[in-house]
């Protein structure tokens, strides 16, 4: 049973009935790895451990690729950085605990932009990952290795982390489904922190149903993550969960943000297909959302510069000895961090510095509140907010040299990391060169169920 022609539930049913074995799935994943990974470079390390017999959980025995920033005790984990090249996790993430309990089968750790900073997986210390659909193009990022592993059949699904679009954008670029859950729905214990008020763990899968299955498995409350939201508190938000099939489109935002002609056409066609599924399409105004990316590029570097201060060469990770302690810190950080990570640490230091924090950090926090309010208010009248996932299809290597051009990749995905809302990217057809577009749906907080319903309707509509 090929990964690309089946669904997780079907694979598991066949494992249970004995039509296939967990070893056969393991072999299939490793065959794809040995054929393609030297070129695609989706996985930094592969695991040869054989899976056990299949268990009851629907994810038991199903091959999965894990982004290189989620900790499994005793396994190397490096966040795509030289800083942590030889770091071995000293504890299990919540994800690892869940996966060990259900008998998930991890095939390897997936390449990523260094410390999840990037939109193309070009900044990894372990080399760039290629897009399996067209090797001259980027797979997106920062979870580019996760997406490329699924797209090339090395795993049935993958986990990534999404701080500004890092699950949804690579999913869109590789023709897959990518889900960023609500902030607080999936525990980040044991996820290496980049920007803590924005980071979410989410699945990359072949279809919406699979994304729902993985989300249901990983969205347990975790008392050891102070931002994990209790199930009973999530329920308070779920009164908005019934789907009245109204889609809101922030037209004026789309008109301003440099959508390619073919991308726009694809988006309009997607909307009309949703109409044929019984959805009503209305225009909505989100007046401040056009500033979301600028706000993000203040808050995210600020938080990243604080979080990455811990890599000092004393307790773990790379350590380069200098003339004195201060010099050792400098030598360690200079040698351990790549270009983009340094740029964002310095940007964070700038926006937090005493002369500038009012004009940048505090102003950005205020705008974040306004944007959040606007998005939450919009859900009084609509069930789903729809935009394209990206302005265009996957770009070619080397095409975006300027940092701001790269940052603009996240223009449509970033707003919902700021607001905390769940969002999903679903393949919406191909351009004239055969590269996929993504349709992006956002739902009210903790109303992932609504994303899955609308998402499945969308998949049906575009066949």
């Amino acid at each position, binding site marked *: 049973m090929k990964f690309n022609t089946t669904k997780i539930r079907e694979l598991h049913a066949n494992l249970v009935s004995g039509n296939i074995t967990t070893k056969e799935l393991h072999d299939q994943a490793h065959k794809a790895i040995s054929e393609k990974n030297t070129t695609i470079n989706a996985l930094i390390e592969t695991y040869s451990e054989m899976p056990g017999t299949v268990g009851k959980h629907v994810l038991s025995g199903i091959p999965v690729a894990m982004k290189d920033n989620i900790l499994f005790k005793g396994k190397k984990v490096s966040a795509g950085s030289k800083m942590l090249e030889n770091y071995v996790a000293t504890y299990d993430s919540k994800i690892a605990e869940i996966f060990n309990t259900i008998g998930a089968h991890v095939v390897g750790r997936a390449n990523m932009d260094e410390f999840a900073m990037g939109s193309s997986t070009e900044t990894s210390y372990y080399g760039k990952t290629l897009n399996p659909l067209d090797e001259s193009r980027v797979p997106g990022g920062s979870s580019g290795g996760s997406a490329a592993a699924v797209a090339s059949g090395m795993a049935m699904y993958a986990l990534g982390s999404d701080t500004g679009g890092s699950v949804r954008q690579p999913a869109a670029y590789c023709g897959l489904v990518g889900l960023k859950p609500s902030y607080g729905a999936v525990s980040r214990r044991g996820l290496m922190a980049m920007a803590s008020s924005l980071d979410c763990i989410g699945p990359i899968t072949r279809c919406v149903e699979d994304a729902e299955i993985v989300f249901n498995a990983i969205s347990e409350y975790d008392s050891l993550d102070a931002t994990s939201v209790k199930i009973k508190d999530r329920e308070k938000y779920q009164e908005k969960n019934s789907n009245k099939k109204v889609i809101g489109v922030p037209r004026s935002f789309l008109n301003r943000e440099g959508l390619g002609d073919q991308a726009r056409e694809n988006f309009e066609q997607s909307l009309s297909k949703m109409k044929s599924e019984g959805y009503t399409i209305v225009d909505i105004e989100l007046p401040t959302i056009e500033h979301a990316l600028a706000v993000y590029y203040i808050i995210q570097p600020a938080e990243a510069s604080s979080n990455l201060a811990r890599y000092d060469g004393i307790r773990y990770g790379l350590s380069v000895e200098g003339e004195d*302690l201060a010099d050792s810190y400098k030598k360690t950080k200079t040698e351990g961090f790549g270009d983009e990570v340094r740029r964002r640490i310095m940007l964070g230091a700038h926006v937090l510095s005493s002369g500038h924090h009012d004009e940048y950090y505090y102003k950005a926090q205020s705008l974040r509140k306004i944007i959040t309010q606007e998005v939450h208010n919009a859900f009084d009248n609509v069930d789903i907010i729809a935009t394209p996932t990206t302005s265009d299809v996957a770009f070619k290597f080397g095409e975006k040299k300027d940092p701001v051009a790269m940052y603009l990749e996240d223009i449509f995905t970033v707003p919902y990391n700021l607001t905390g809302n769940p969002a999903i990217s679903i393949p919406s057809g191909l351009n004239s060169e055969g590269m996929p577009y993504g349709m992006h749906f956002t739902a009210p907080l903790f109303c992932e169920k609504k994303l899955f319903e609308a998402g499945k309707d969308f998949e049906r509509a575009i066949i």
Partner: protein
Amino acid sequence: MIIYTLCMNNTDIQTLADLSRLHLSSTEIESYAKDFEGILQYINTIQSIGINQEDETYVGTNTNYLREDTESYSSGEFSENLLQAAPQRDGDFIKVQKIL
């Protein structure tokens, strides 16, 4: 009227590098100065938006769920694992260079 920083000179970048504990070559400094010009120009677009006083004082509303302040693990349970990750150790201590 406030004049916002739209460009940074090499000294500014050097200061940020020092704050971030990074050694940068003069070529790297030049290159980051150029990048920062574009980035600051982009993020400075938020300065054009007026916000009311109530929003100005906003600091965030996330709720943290904290556990009871009790012993959650036994002493020494994780020590050896953590010490093994240290670049330099001396018995049960992590070794560092002289501080004073």
